[in-house]
C-alpha cells in the first residue's frame, strides 16, 4: 500500500464488481494486495464468491489473512501463483502486482483463458503520467504496452479510464463470447 491507497481510489472497481459477479459465474483473483483487496473482499464476502489474492510481501499477506479473513492468500510471485492456480472459472481479475510487460502479459493471457465470457480483467497503471513509464518496472512500469496489445486483440473489449486510480489508468478487458451470431460479435 505504498501509495497511501484509499478505497475511493478504486471507485470504478467498487461500483462494477457486484454487477459483474451477479452476472458472471466464477471466482475473483487479485494480484497485488492493498486497498483494492478490501474493496473486492467486501463484494466477494457478501456474494459468497471465492477470492484469491497474491503478493510477494509477507507483511501484506499477513494483513490480508488476519484482517480480511476471507480471501485465500498466496505469498509469492504471481507467475508461481498462476502455476498452482486451480482449474476453476474466473469472473473478475484485478492486476496490480509486478509492473513489467513480461510478467503482466503472462498474467493477462493466463487469466483470459480462465475468464468466463462477460468476465472482466482490471489492469492498473496502464496510462502513466510523464516520467512514470519505467522500463525497469518501477512506478507504472511497462503495463501500458499490455494495454496497447490488448486494444488490438479482437477477442476482448478494452477501455481505459484515465481518471480515478491515481489517474494512472485503469483498463477494463471484457472477454467476448465465442461462437455467437455475427450481430453479437
Amino acid at each position, binding site marked *: 500500500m505504498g501509495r497511501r491507497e484509499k478505497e475511493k481510489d478504486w471507485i470504478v472497481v467498487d461500483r462494477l464488481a457486484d454487477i459483474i459477479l451477479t452476472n458472471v459465474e466464477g471466482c475473483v483473483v487479485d494480484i497485488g494486495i492493498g486497498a483494492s483487496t478490501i474493496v473486492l473482499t467486501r463484494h466477494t464476502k457478501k456474494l459468497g464468491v471465492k477470492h484469491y489474492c497474491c503478493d510477494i510481501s509477507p507483511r501484506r499477506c499477513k494483513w490480508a489473512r488476519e484482517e480480511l479473513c476471507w480471501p485465500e492468500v498466496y505469498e509469492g510471485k504471481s507467475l508461481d501463483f498462476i502455476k498452482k492456480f486451480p482449474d476453476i472459472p474466473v469472473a473478475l481479475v484485478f492486476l496490480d502486482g509486478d509492473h513489467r510487460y513480461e510478467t503482466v502479459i503472462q498474467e493477462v493471457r493466463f487469466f483470459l483463458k480462465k475468464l468466463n465470457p462477460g468476465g472482466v480483467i482490471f489492469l492498473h497503471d496502464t496510462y*502513466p503520467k510523464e516520467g512514470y513509464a519505467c522500463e525497469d518496472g518501477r512506478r507504472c512500469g511497462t503495463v*501500458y504496452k499490455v494495454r496497447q496489445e490488448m486494444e488490438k486483440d479482437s477477442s476482448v*473489449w478494452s477501455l*481505459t479510464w484515465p481518471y480515478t486510480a491515481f489517474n494512472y489508468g485503469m483498463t477494463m478487458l*471484457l472477454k467476448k463470447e465465442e461462437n455467437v451470431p455475427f*450481430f453479437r*460479435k
Partner: protein
Amino acid sequence: MGHKKEDWIILDRLTDIILNNVKGCVVEIGIGVSTEVLLKHTKKLGVAQYSCDINRKKCNWARKIGVTEVYEGKSFGFIEGFPDFPVALVLLDGDHRYPTVVREVDFFLSRLSLGGVIFMHDTCKLSWENVYGKVASDSYLVRRELERREDLMTFTWPYTAVEYGLTMIMKKDINAPIFRR
C-alpha cells in the same frame, strides 16, 4: 416505459464518476427510465441535461420530472440546434437505424470531452428477432465499425440493459505521448 431502473445499473453507477472528472453536459436521445437515472446525477452535480425524443408524451413526462432542456422531434433536428458546448456523457437509445445512429455518434464524438463517454444501447442483442423484428436495430453495425477505429476505445457490456448490449465509447488522446496512446 418498458425498462426498469435496475436495467440501467451500469449507467447509474458510472455517471457521477464521469461527471466528477470530465467537464461537459449530459445528452440523452430517447427518453425513458434512463432519463430519471441521469437526472438524479445531473441535478445533484448541477450539470445541464439535454433530452430528446419524438414522442410528445415522453417529452412532457421528462419536463414534469425536472429535465429543463427537452427537445421534441427527431435527433437530426436536435443536433442541428445543439449549442456549442462540450459534452461529458451521451446516451443513445432513440432511432436505431444505421444512418441515424452514425450521424448521432459522429456529431457527439466531435463534442465529447476527453474522458467523456458515449453509451449506446442495443448493440449486442440476443437474437435475430430482437435485431430485425418489429423495428430495425442497426446499432450493432455501428458498434462493429467503431471497434475498428484506432482513435477510440469501445467496450460492450453484454448483461444488464435488458441484456441487449450497452456499449461505452471513449476517445483516445491522439496527441498524447506514446505511453498514453
